[in-house]
């Protein structure tokens, strides 16, 4: 028996700021393709995702949908850059067992009328689990970056510690970002925090950098690098950090 699958609309909470029109004509099987990951108790697993012009059709849809179970005391790390496709979307549905940890760093960059988004649903199902999600979005043109993060803490999941941080940087008028934190908490001894902010390039810093000899392009690259770097602080692999940063910054250099 196959499950009934239908394309979502923008009325669906998890697709609220998405480009659902782009889904039209997509193969339903491809749309509903999920990757299942299980992290055994006590182990650590890192997943790195890149959606870029290298591996995605600039006018197409590129979805990465993960279902993750993190075992007792295990750790799952997800680092991703979405810098390609008309609609580029990383979606994660994840459950944490006792004492497990989920670490996520996400970067979206894009212009034109593209939509690039991280959508997570993190369920703290047992006590003492922790999660930390950081998303940084840099957009221009009429580009949109989204982070929709839902956190469920069940009644028995005491001592849960969950954090979400989102920051958007808009390089041009017309670009936009959306952050939708959603917390469903049924335990009483938990720590859940989320922060969201949106801003523009710091023109004081840019003049300061220009006065030291940096061109507008060079100062922008440095400032954007510093901005998105937040999302990769917990990535304990310098070469991988640099690779992801370069993918995001090259996109910026190529299109602005």
């Amino acid at each position, binding site marked *: 028996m196959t499950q009934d699958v239908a394309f979502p609309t923008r009325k669906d909470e998890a697709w609220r700021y998405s480009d659902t029109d782009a889904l039209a004509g997509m193969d339903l099987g491809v749309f509903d393709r999920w990757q299942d990951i299980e992290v055994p108790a006590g182990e650590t697993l890192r997943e790195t995702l890149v959606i870029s012009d290298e591996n995605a059709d600039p006018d197409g849809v590129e979805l990465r949908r993960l279902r993750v179970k993190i075992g007792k005391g295990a750790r799952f790390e997800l680092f991703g850059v979405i810098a390609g496709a008309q609609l580029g979307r990383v979606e994660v549905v994840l459950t944490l067992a006792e004492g497990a940890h989920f670490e996520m760093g996400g970067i979206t960059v894009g212009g034109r009328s593209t939509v690039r988004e991280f959508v997570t649903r993190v369920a703290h199902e047992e006590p003492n689990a922790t999660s930390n999600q950081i998303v940084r979005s840099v957009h221009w043109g009429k580009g949109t970056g989204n982070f929709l993060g839902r956190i469920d803490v069940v009644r028995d999941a005491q001592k849960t510690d969950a954090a979400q941080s989102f920051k958007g940087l808009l390089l041009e008028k017309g670009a936009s970002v959306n952050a939708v934190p959603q917390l469903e908490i049924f335990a009483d001894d938990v720590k859940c925090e989320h922060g969201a902010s949106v801003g523009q390039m*710091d*023109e*004081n*810093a840019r*003049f*300061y*950098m*220009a*006065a*030291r*000899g*940096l*061109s*507008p392009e*060079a100062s922008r690259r*440095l*400032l954007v*690098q*510093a*901005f998105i*770097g*937040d999302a990769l602080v917990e990535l304990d692999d310098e070469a991988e950090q640099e690779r992801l940063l370069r993918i995001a910054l090259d996109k910026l250099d190529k299109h602005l």
Partner: protein
Amino acid sequence: MLKIDNLTAEIDGKTILNGLSLEVAAGEIHAIMGPNGAGKSTLSYVLGGRPGYEVTGGSVTFRGQDLLDMEPHERAAAGLFLGFQYPVEIPGVSNVQFLREALNAQRKGRGEEPLSGGEFLKLAKEKAALLKLDMDMLKRNVNVGFSGGEKKRAEMVQMGILDPAFAVLDETDSGLDIDALRVVGDGINAIMRDSGKGVLLITHYQRLLDVVKPDKVSILSKGRIVKTGGPELALRLENEGYDAVMAEPA
């Protein structure tokens, strides 16, 4: 070296510089003093090319080139250094990375080879020592968490590294205690006292001029230079005040 002729400039439609003329020759340190609101900081920003400061008349020639026709980063590459009254914090960008990129961008603009990481660090260490600034500070993010005095010393370390032909220093002495003032003043002398270099030293107080001895002192008031003299002019201002000195016929 720097020739400002009848310069007028405004911010948000308000005229701040009003026919300012001033010349600084190579080998000269020229102090600019003046009451609050005279246009001292505006002068430094106009010379640096800060957006929002609109030049409405006059000209500025720097080493034979039209300075006002250049972008801010081109002015830096041409040898102009602007020392900020309030150095800007840049989270996420280390001093070392920032200054190495800046120096190499300037060198590229002049057709010179870039410095390697090792060469740059050696240079940075030398200049940090000159300003008695811990090298670890340079590994931290630009000005983030620096005290007022540390920012000013870091500003002078930047100047030492970039080695400009001409420096416009806007109240570099503000926020410094007496010992730090001596260190910063000695730093300015070491970096900029040179027959081929020039300095425009904007200050409120005589005390910096005790360390960095100016060749000339000008008083800026209401957007123009109203009096120019030797170092004695600064001493008289300190003793008698602006009103008394400016009331005399020029």
